[in-house]
Structures are given as C-alpha cells and as structure tokens.
C-alpha cells in the first residue's frame, strides 16, 4: 500500500489513546485508518480508497446488518470484533448465502486504548480470513468520554444466495427433526460470568465462530434442509418459537437430548436461568425431513463447529404454534418466547 510501512503496520502510531482528533476527519483520522485499519483489513476493494467499495456479484444477494455493544469487550473465546464479524457472517449464512463482503463501522469512546483497538482489529482480520469474507468499507467516529461504552461496532454484509436451496420457515412441516449444531448457552454464560466476576472454570468460553463454511457444505450436500437459524439473542427458545409460529406447526423438544455443558448448567442453576434462553454466537438450529437427518448429522460432525450436533426434538401438527419440552422425568411443559432480558434471581 503506498505510503505505509507494512512491516510496522499497526504499531507506528505514537498515540496510546483515541482522542476526539481521531474522529475529526483530518490527519489523525487518516493516521488511524492507515495505520490501524488498512494494514489489518487490506484487500483489493479496500485499497481503492473510494467513498464506497465497488464489488462484483453474480447470483441473487442476501444483505444484513447488526450492531454490537457487548460488555465486557474482551472475554474468554473472543472479543467484540470477533462477534461483529461472525455475527454478520452467520446471519448471511442462515439465509442460505455465501458471505462475500462486509462493512465495519466503529464508534469509539475518547480515551479508548489504541492497543485494545488493535487487538480487536486483528481479531476481526482473523475472523474475516477464516470466514473467507473481505472487509471492503468502513467508518470510524469518536464520541466524548463517557458518551460511549468503549467501542460500538456495526457490521453489514452481503452474500450470494446458494442456488438450489430454499431456506424458509414455511418449509417446515410436521414430522421433521429439529437439530442443534452443538452445546447451547456457552456464549451468554461466559459473558454474564465475566460481567459479574463470577468465578467459572476456564473451560467455559464463548462459542463465537463463523458458521458459513459448515452451512455452505451442508446446503451443498443436503439442499432439502427446510430452515436454519442461528440461536443468538433469546437463545434456542426464541428460534423454536419463531419457527413454530411462522410455520404453523408444534415442536416437542426432549430435555435429555439438549446438549448443555456441565459448567453452563451449573451457572444456570445458580442464577435461575435456563440454557435454552441463553444466547449463542456459534450455534444454529436446523429443521429437516427425517430421511435426511443422518446425512445432515454426518456433514455437521465433520466440522469443528458442528461436531456435537444432535437431534433435540421433532415437529408435530397437534399443538400448533407451541414449543413444548418433554422433561427428563417425562413431564411436559411450555417453552415460551423469552420476555425481556434474563435477570438473576435473589437466592
């Protein structure tokens, strides 16, 4: 890149902290972009340095956006940057698209450590590389001290729809299997434990990961998949309720089939949470005709991000719009749509 010493990329800035000048559009802004952002995200589209990126697409496209405001910014298993890339990549993947290009908008609070910003940017670079997407355009703004929460990141992304697959909740019919791609609740348990200084075993970490490669493989091998959705905010419970409502079917989940780590179960017991309601950042729920279940599981088990995938329940036409849990001891109860945020109980 002209004018930039790539050997020293990201470390030649003298400043240790973000100042309002970094967001004022002048020299300092350019320094920030050229010395922190460009070296990490470098690609042919970004290098054009236009007001926007000029891109080529051949198929129909999927387009999505999401904003990330997590606290703490750094946690076991990732940071806000990894979330921002993986979140948008995963949203595109869930529509049946191959993610191609993403944008990154950062709102940074005055006084934010540039070393932390660099860590976040490097993680974004790694996540984008793993997902095979290019970060093609971006923006940085700085807000006054105490007017932000360290850093907020928005990403938007476009992807190309994989031909031959049709991902839509309306495709879900009675008698289909419901498959979870792995252990549920890891991300939210990690974040909440960090946030409140709860001592948790080091094995508990966020599942934040780009799922697009797994999904692409899955859709190539089993295009008959009816629908898939990543179980982020609201957890698996929200996904199941959305699909039941949109497809007009009922769902029965078996408690003893739901994959939940011991640490996450323990965390939930202490605070009165339910794993099904905890957010994930690297898990999805998929619905498929039973005759393809084995094939779906076989493909998923080959991937690091689907190796613990399993059937957790099935759909029915008896209790339409309802998601029901068959408990370990054989009872039945509703899994309703999460209402508001999860708050810890008293004792």
């Amino acid at each position, binding site marked *: 890149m002209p004018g930039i010493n790539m050997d020293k990329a990201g470390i030649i800035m003298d400043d240790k902290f973000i100042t309002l000048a970094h967001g004022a559009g002048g020299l300092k802004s350019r320094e920030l972009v050229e010395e922190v952002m460009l070296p990490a995200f470098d690609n042919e589209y970004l290098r054009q340095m236009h007001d926007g990126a000029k891109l080529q697409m051949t198929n129909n496209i999927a387009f999505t956006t999401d904003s990330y405001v997590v606290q703490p910014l750094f946690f076991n298993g990732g940071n806000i940057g990894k979330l921002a890339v993986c979140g948008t990549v995963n949203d595109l993947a869930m529509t049946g698209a191959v993610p191609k290009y993403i944008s990154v908008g950062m709102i940074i609070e005055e006084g934010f450590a540039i070393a932390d910003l660099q860590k976040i940017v490097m993680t974004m670079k790694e996540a984008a590389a793993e997902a095979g997407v290019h970060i093609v355009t971006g923006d940085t703004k700085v807000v006054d001290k105490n007017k932000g929460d360290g850093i907020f990141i928005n990403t938007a992304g476009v992807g190309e729809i994989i031909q031959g697959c049709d991902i839509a909740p309306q495709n879900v019919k009675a008698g289909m299997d419901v498959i979870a791609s792995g252990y549920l609740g890891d991300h939210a348990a990690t974040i909440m434990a960090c946030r*409140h200084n*709860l001592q948790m075993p080091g094995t508990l970490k966020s599942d934040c990961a780009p799922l697009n490669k797994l999904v692409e493989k899955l859709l190539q091998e089993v295009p008959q998949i009816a629908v898939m959705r990543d179980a982020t905010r609201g957890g698996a419970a929200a996904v199941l309720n959305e699909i039941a409502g949109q497809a007009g079917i009922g769902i029965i989940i078996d*408690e*003893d089939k739901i994959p939940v780590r011991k640490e996450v179960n323990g965390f939930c017991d202490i*605070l*009165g949470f*339910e794993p099904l309601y905890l957010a994930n950042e690297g898990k999805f729920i998929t619905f498929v005709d039973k005759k393809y279940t084995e094939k779906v599981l076989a493909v998923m088990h080959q991937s690091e991000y689907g190796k613990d995938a399993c059937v957790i329940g099935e759909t029915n036409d*008896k*209790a339409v719009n*309802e998601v*029901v*849990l068959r*408990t*370990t*001891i*054989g*009872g*039945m*109860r*509703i899994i*309703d749509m999460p*209402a*508001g945020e999860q*708050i*810890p*109980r*008293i*004792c």
Partner: protein
Amino acid sequence: MTKAEESRKAAENLLKKIDELIDRPVRFMEVCGTHTVSIFRSGIRQLLPEKVELVSGPGCPVCVTPNDYMDMAIAYAKQKDIIIATFGDMLKVPGTSSSLNAMKTAGADIRIVYSPLDALQIARDNPAKKIVFLGVGFETTAPLSAATIQAAGNENINNFFVLAAHKWTNTALEALLNDKDIKVDGFLLPGHVCVITGEEPFAFVAEKYKKPAVVAGFDALDILQAVYMLAKQVKNKEAKIENAYKRVVKAEGNIIAKQAIEAVFDKSTPSWRGLGEIPLSGMQINDKYSKYDVLKQIAVEKEVSKENPACCCGDVLKGLKKPIDCPLFKKICTPDKPAGACMVSVEGTCHAWYKYGQGRYHYGR
C-alpha cells in the same frame, strides 16, 4: 441404562408409590419459590396423580415484598446522590405508581448486584455517593447482608446503607397454619433455608400443628422423594419433620451464618404482601449497626402506598387461589408488564404458571 432413563425409571417408581399410598385428595404446599420453579420446570404437577395437588406457598422473597417497601426504594432512587444496588429481580416489581426499572430509565443510578458485597465495593469505588443496598430475601440472603454490614463496620465505610427487609420463613408458615381458611395436608420445607437454620425452627409444624413436613432438595427426584415421604406420613397418620436433603442440610444448620444474623439484626414485625403483618417475622438492623440502616440515616418522602385491589397475589401466596382465578392473570398481568409481585419473580407462582403454560398446554392437566 442412560442417566436420563435411570431418572425416568426412578420417577415412575416414586409416582407409583405415591399413587398407592394416597387414597383421598391431598394438598401439599411447597414453601420455597425455588421448589415452585423446579416443580414446573420438570413437569411434576402433571405427572402426579390427580388426587395430589401441589400449591405454592409464600417462599418467593420478591413476591412477599409489599408496595410500601418498593415505594421506599423508589423514593431513595430519586435522590441524586444515591446509587441503589439490588438483586436483579427487584427491578420490575411494581410499587404503587412506579418501579425501579422505570426510575432507571428516567436516569436513576440503579445497579444489579449478585451479592451485597458487590454493593459494598460500589461504595468503596464511589466515595462521593451514598449506596443503598436493597436487603431482601429470607434466611438465605440475610447472612450475606449481615456479613456485609459487619465488613462495612470493620472498614469504617460511611457511604453504605441497607434498606433491610429480610424475613423469617418459619413465621409465615405459622401464620398460614393459624389461618383457618387454609387447608394443607403437609409441607415441603425449603431446603436452602434449612441449610442455614437447620430443621429446628420448623419443628412446630409437626409438634404444634400436627402436620407432616419434609425438608426437600431441588431437583425433580428430590422433590418426588419428599412428596413420597409426605404421602407415607399421611397414610400412617403421622406428623413429623423429616429430612430428604441430608446431603446438604445438617440438623443444626450453619452456625456461622446464624451468628452473623444475630449479630446484626433484631426481630421486627413487618408487613408481608398478601399476608399482612406477621409478629417477629422480620429482621431490622440493630442499634449497634444503625449507622447502616438507611431508614434511620437518610430521611426521604415517599408516596402513600396502595395495593392494587384486583391483584390476587395475597390469596395466591396463601394457596387459596390459583393464578388462573385472578382476573388480571394473563390479561393485564404478564411477565412483561406485571401487576403483582407474583408475576415478577421467576420464582413467583403466577410467573411460573404463565411461563410454563399451566392451563395453557392442552396435553397437560
């Protein structure tokens, strides 16, 4: 056999034995809110034979907190120099005309903590502010509040205060037993409370009122085991206190925790939502630690408290009414916009009925 199959088998076994023992309709009350949640979560109510009814008692700390207390907390939250530190589930509890959540939205500094010790840390970190910790809960949370007040004393921290409303569960149980309207054939005693208090404070249930009672653990099989033991006492016309949670509950309780409560709190006579005033059922901060009693140290004006007359929380807490008997249930009162405290806490009876679909899921009872 997998672990799940073993559990299912054990549950079937207990359910069968309960069915064989009981030959008339009986009502057992689970006193503790955590039991209520576990019972709903595991679907026990639908698995028990029709003749065995489980009713929820007054053991959800949020639910028994009256409007008066919330109004006081809200009055403190309005003060510019005060930070309120509270357990999360108090945020949504409605007071007479507002809630802490509404105050937070309006700009009050209200912080969720997991322990009163976190509140003390907020006090250390914010010397220019006054920190008011909302000390609610039963014998389980009271020792922590007490220990925190003692720690504040040892460190001579002057900007930490407690709005204390801790309560003794056994007194509520006695109030219920004195109420002629309430028909209960036996009690599942609160396992966590008994960890602190031991079994002795509940001895009156069997001795004075001749009702069977079993200290119960919290997973589905623990609870079924306790119901089975109650059924056996009913069948044998016995009334004794049994412990089905021996792996955790010691007969003498936790002596250090009890000493902490004694060192900091005197007995008081507070009001319980739905149950009214119960003599010597509360814990107020004693004279030695009165500098931490916010009621004695910071005077504020609060609005005149009124309860919503249509809300049936009181009767629900006493097991006299089911949530579906309340005209507000599911119509005006939902977890999103609770009218009464029993809908706020995840451990509240109305919340559990709503959330777990009791009366909603047509495969269930």
